[in-house]
């Protein structure tokens, strides 16, 4: 008897074990994956909704006609339309009415960019764009499978472009998708499409790379190095939202290339978000100094120096440090903010000053101080008057220094306290070197 029992258990183990060997659950071959390199999320346009509603209605009417012919479905009532254009279809089942959930007309459009791995050499490596609509971001993202044909692989996604209409509607669902889905990376870079939809920017062609999203990613990292714009990753965005409910994202737009008219993607300004909704843009000029003020543009910002309206020199900033000093009045209804910025810079270009002369250098530094102060003040005032919210994170510094005080004024900060704040900017420039030149190029006539 024992031998039979042993044999029986042995067979059971073999069967169990063989279950492991037949290509397990998570086994995925490389070529069966569609590697997604870029994605964009937009709201579905109203024209598309109209079209979809009509289509759904037509289908429903044809369903009813068919059911009328069918003897079993005699007792069906005609479909009712509610206000949003949805169609409800109460069904009957054994004499009871069961209302069937008919989902809302699709809200989100998610465009994905995958790489075509066709065996034909001229097609390999080219980007394929697909788009799908869904009620939620997750649904729309998953629906792309039916156009791509392969299993979607979001793990290598580095870039997510948010369309302007979606940004205005609110990006909370998108961020939830990015954090929660196990395949998405938290370090995905986010950006807002200014004036267009995300899909357009993703599809915009560019001559250097076959895959647009790689191009956009390298553009943003290079631009961040040159302090023209900055790269915001999803975890950073969520963090800033969590602190005060205010955050910023780079804005990207399409412009025709002046050389050949092809559309190219250009970073133009900063988008300002409050409570997950887009409230406006900072123009490019102001955004340069915004980045400066929050300490994101340490290196290689070129600052043109003007004297009496004329361009005389430019500085190449190497290092900058921003300190904020503040002072409240007696009843804490107004705050006086003073920004002290220390800059170390090289001379970028010099047309006028004599670099060997100490006084000239001092004059250049003073001019630089004046110029930069003006521009930063302009930026601060722009923010105050147009948005009235603190996108510079000054509130966080006050919270860190005086926690108990912050608890009392927290509610008022973005609702008037910052807007009515008195601003002062002080810049101290230190000019280190003239790069490769000792002095400016002189003309022969001058003494």
């Amino acid at each position: 008897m024992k031998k039979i029992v042993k044999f029986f258990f042995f067979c059971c183990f073999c069967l169990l074990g063989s279950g492991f060997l037949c290509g397990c659950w998570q086994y995925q071959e490389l070529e069966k994956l569609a590697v997604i390199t870029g994605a964009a999320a937009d709201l579905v346009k109203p024209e598309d909704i109209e079209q979809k509603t009509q289509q759904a209605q037509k289908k429903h009417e044809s369903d009813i006609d068919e059911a009328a012919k069918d003897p079993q479905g005699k007792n069906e009532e005609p479909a009712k339309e509610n206000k949003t254009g949805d169609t409800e279809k109460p069904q009957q089942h054994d004499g009871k009415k069961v209302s069937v959930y008919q989902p809302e007309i699709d809200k989100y459009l998610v465009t994905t960019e995958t790489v075509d791995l066709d065996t034909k050499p001229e097609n390999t490596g080219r980007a394929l764009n697909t788009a799908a609509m869904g009620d939620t971001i997750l649904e729309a993202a998953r629906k792309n499978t039916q156009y791509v044909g392969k299993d979607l692989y979001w793990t290598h996604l580095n870039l997510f472009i948010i369309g302007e209409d979606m940004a205005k509607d609110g990006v909370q669902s998108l961020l939830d998708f990015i954090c929660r889905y196990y395949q998405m990376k938290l370090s995905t870079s986010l950006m807002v499409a200014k004036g267009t939809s995300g899909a357009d920017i993703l599809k915009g062609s560019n001559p250097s790379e076959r895959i647009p999203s790689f191009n956009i990613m390298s553009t943003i990292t290079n631009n961040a190095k040159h302090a023209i714009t900055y790269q915001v990753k999803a975890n950073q965005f969520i963090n800033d939202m969590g602190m005060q409910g205010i955050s910023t994202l780079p804005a990207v737009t399409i412009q025709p290339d002046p050389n050949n008219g092809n559309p190219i993607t250009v970073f133009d300004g900063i988008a300002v978000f409050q409570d997950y909704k887009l409230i406006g843009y900072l123009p490019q000029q102001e955004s340069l100094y915004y980045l400066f003020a929050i300490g994101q543009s340490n290196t290689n910002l070129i600052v043109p120096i003007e004297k009496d309206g004329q361009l005389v020199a430019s500085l190449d900033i190497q290092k900058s440090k921003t300190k904020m000093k503040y002072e409240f009045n007696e009843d804490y209804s107004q705050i006086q903010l003073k920004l002290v910025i220390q800059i170390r810079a090289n001379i970028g270009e010099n047309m006028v000053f004599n670099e060997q002369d100490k006084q000239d250098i001092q004059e250049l530094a003073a001019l630089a101080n004046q110029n930069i102060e003006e521009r930063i003040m302009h930026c601060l005032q722009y923010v105050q008057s147009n948005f009235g919210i603190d996108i510079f994170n000054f509130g966080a510094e006050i919270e860190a220094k005086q926690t108990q005080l912050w608890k009392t004024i927290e509610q008022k900060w973005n609702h008037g306290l910052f807007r009515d704040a008195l601003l002062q900017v002080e810049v101290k420039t230190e000019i280190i070197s003239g790069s490769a030149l000792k002095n400016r190029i002189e003309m022969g006539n001058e003494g």
Partner: protein
Amino acid sequence: MKKETISGKQFAFLLFMYLNSGVLLMGQNAVAGADSWLSLLLAAICILPFYFIYIDLLKRHPQKDFFAILKEICGPKLGKFLITLYVLYAIVLASFAMSNHAQFLHTISLIGMPLWAIMIFMAIIVFLVLRMGFEVLARWIEMVLPVLLAMLVLTGILTLTESHTIDNFTFLYDGVKPVFIGGFHFLSFPFGEALLLFGLLDNVKCKKWNLPKTVCLTLFLTTLFIMSNFFRNLSVLGPNLMSILNYPTYEASTLIDAGIFIERIESIVSTNFVLSDFIKTSICLLFAARGLQSLFNQREIACFAPYLILISFAIALFVFPSIIMNQLWIEQISYWFWPLLLLLPLFLWLFTVLQQKREKNKATKSAC
């Protein structure tokens, strides 16, 4: 019964890994929030005298392990009942660790696999450890821990490139009470559970190494390690994100972007967590096996291995099926084991001290 000896270094390594296992993955305590590090520190300071009590208890009863002491002091029947309680606790804890590990892998990468398929591998390797004995595990960890630690430290350093200065580092934002509640919670999970590790020791007399000093140093290093982990998570992810993530340490390592080649190494980092869960499960089940050995007066613990594995496998599958249940267990139910972990050994120790004092007095009296 085979005599098993482990060296001080091996014990320190085991303690380190065991204490780290639960906390490495989890982030902040729900109650204490951003001040979790303070509650951790508090718990560590409070648990140190308890560790000394465990060691002293074992020293005062030479050649006896924890279960023999229980039987001797509490009497045979009560002792057996208490041993049963401890064994049950150890089995539940082991199942919890197994289920934790399976859910972690299931959530982050092996999403298609059913939980039992992931748990089977852990079950097999723990079964082998039970058959081989405690000594083999100690030697194994002596070889593995340096590598593991190096990996953890390296990924910690790599994530520093992504860290932001903690702009709003708040100190005692919600007051002192949450810190104490969090500290009490940390006391029973994970620090109090070290009793299971001390309970595996037979004989604490050793000339080469000083056990209290070793334990002190290990506790200090462990706390330092967990706290640095916590601060790193805080600076990389930010307080808002950290409080909502299930596995903050893992998510923090997804942000590593040190170069083209070292981009997404979190699959390799997740192997660390797998190994630490393995240590915890094996130690808990070894403790349970020892308890069963003293209950049924057997010679070897290897004969209990299949039963223990099957029981904990079943409990892990049916009692801890979801992450939500696990978190509930950690945050609410694990509170209630502190009498078993802390009070009972304290009582045993006091009893032993008094008894030995009495005997000494008797001896001096009779001498006079």
